[in-house]
């Protein structure tokens, strides 16, 4: 096992090199939230949310960080693994004595490092240009950490599982991006959640992004904003429960559905 972890840590380095050197993946999974923050921040940043002195930029940064979890883990893996299956990466690895666990450790490590880098830049940009306030209490920082960790694990596993859906590497983004976009629109990332239709709120509540976004609002918004939540409170316990369920579900789905070879291939 220690051998698998040691090789896994080596794979983290290789995965990160490939992630950041591949311009498309770096742009699409890493820089996109920053671009969106700049665009939305520049257009709406100074406006306040109805009846509060909370700026839209402050509200939006919570959604962008939650989306960042989805981008660096789910979207990144669900697009890159089909490509790896197609270009022979996985086949070559299976032909070596590398333990399979090392491959997944490499992916998880890559996702975590990419997310930490992304969130750091996001917050720095937000603070420097759009007057974002940092989380105000130790509890908020603590929540920031556990929500990020649970969210990354759940969405990494789901990304690994979902990587079997695209039929080809080239078509992967076409079946992955719509899922991410629909979740973003229905989960309160681009729109204020309590203004969405009831059915949309119910739909979003089934998936992790709504809960990630809500918990990030707790982290970045003042207490007074709690009243604007649909439930009238932050529901952190519920958030933890939903994320844990998705971690378990993601693990099962990844174990059952993950494959090393393309669908319909000979081997």
């Amino acid at each position, binding site marked *: 096992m220690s051998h698998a972890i040691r090789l896994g840590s080596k794979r983290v380095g290789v995965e990160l090199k490939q992630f950041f*050197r591949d311009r498309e993946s770096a742009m699409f999974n890493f820089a996109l939230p920053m671009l969106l923050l700049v665009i939305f921040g520049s257009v709406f940043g100074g406006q306040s949310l109805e009846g509060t002195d909370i700026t839209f930029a402050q509200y939006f940064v919570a959604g962008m960080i939650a989306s960042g979890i989805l981008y660096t883990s789910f979207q990144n893996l669900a697009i890159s693994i089909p490509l790896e299956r197609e270009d022979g*990466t996985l086949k*070559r690895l*299976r*032909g*070596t004595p590398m*333990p399979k666990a090392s491959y997944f450790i490499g992916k998880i490590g890559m996702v975590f490092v990419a997310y930490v880098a992304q969130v750091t830049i996001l917050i720095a940009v937000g603070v420097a240009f759009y007057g974002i306030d940092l989380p105000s209490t130790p509890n908020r920082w603590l929540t920031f950490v556990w929500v990020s960790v649970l969210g990354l694990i759940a969405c990494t596993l789901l990304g690994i599982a979902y990587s079997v859906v695209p039929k080809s590497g080239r078509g992967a983004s076409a079946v992955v991006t719509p899922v991410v976009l629909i979740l973003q629109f229905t989960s309160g990332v681009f729109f204020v959640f309590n203004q969405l239709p009831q059915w949309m709120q119910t739909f979003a509540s089934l998936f992790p992004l709504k809960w990630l976004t809500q918990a990030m609002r707790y982290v970045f918004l003042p207490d007074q904003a709690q009243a604007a939540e649909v439930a009238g409170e932050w529901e952190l316990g519920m958030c933890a429960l939903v994320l844990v369920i998705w971690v378990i579900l993601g693990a099962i789905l990844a174990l059952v559905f993950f494959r090393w070879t393309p669908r319909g291939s*000979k081997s």
Partner: protein
Amino acid sequence: MHEQFCVLQRRTGITIVSTTVERIAMAAIAVASLTKSFGEVHAVNGVSFEVAQGECLSLLGPNGAGKTTTTEILEGYTKPDSGHVEVLGHDPQHADLAWRARLGIVLQSVRDLGDLTVIEAVRHFAQYYPNPKDPEAVIAAVGLTHKAGSRNDQLSGGQRRRLDVALGVIGNPELLFLDEPTTGFDPEARREFWDLIESLKADGATILLTTHYLDEAERLADRVAVIARGRIIACDAPHLLGNRNTGLAVVSWTEGGIAHQEQTAQPTLLTQELAHRFNGEVPDLSIKRPSLEDTYLALIDGDELRGDAR
């Protein structure tokens, strides 16, 4: 009675162990009655062969003959439908990572690792193996030293293939699978590659080489096995394949301004007669034995005729 039984069992146990050891010592690869179908297609249809330790066996055959499927069964990628497979003493379907560490695999058509440099990729893969070769030395051996710092996606087709070979041999394999390793090589690169493979052979590695190039098989292989329609139709040393050493030779010469040709089982005798007739030098004399390519094509044609007749 009970004691006797135990002794017998112990004795049988020992016998079994010793025969297994013997077999392992003899053959790096042992395949018997191997079959594999994909839907209606019988890709491998009863293949049997052995490769001794330190031997280089070349699999020849037209596209779709079952070469790659056979190779991928031996590599553990594909599960056979039936038959017996033993590679380095293990069934590839139930082998562990320690077994994997003894293999080197050069696959067909992989295009991965594009965002890494040559040296990064080779160093990284070296870490997977308990007893790897020196990455710089391997890169030098495949002739990529001047490209060591280049991104792999900027390599030419032949350079890319050399990287694949480097990654196949980095773990210091006892058994090396080469699936069409020199596709896209220029003639000079192919010769350098042959030197590399011969040096691996000299170190005692067993090699299973799949190729379309008959000169490559002739140069590297101790034996060649010709596969057609999922079966081995001939298997022998390159110079003995299809009785090419004893087959009819073609003697040709020019007489009275006209080119003559004669097929004969006794070319020396015919040449002697000719020398007599011309009272010295025979104009444009040549004696040709069938080349490996002639023999191979004749084997494949003959097999197709039999297949059509059925």
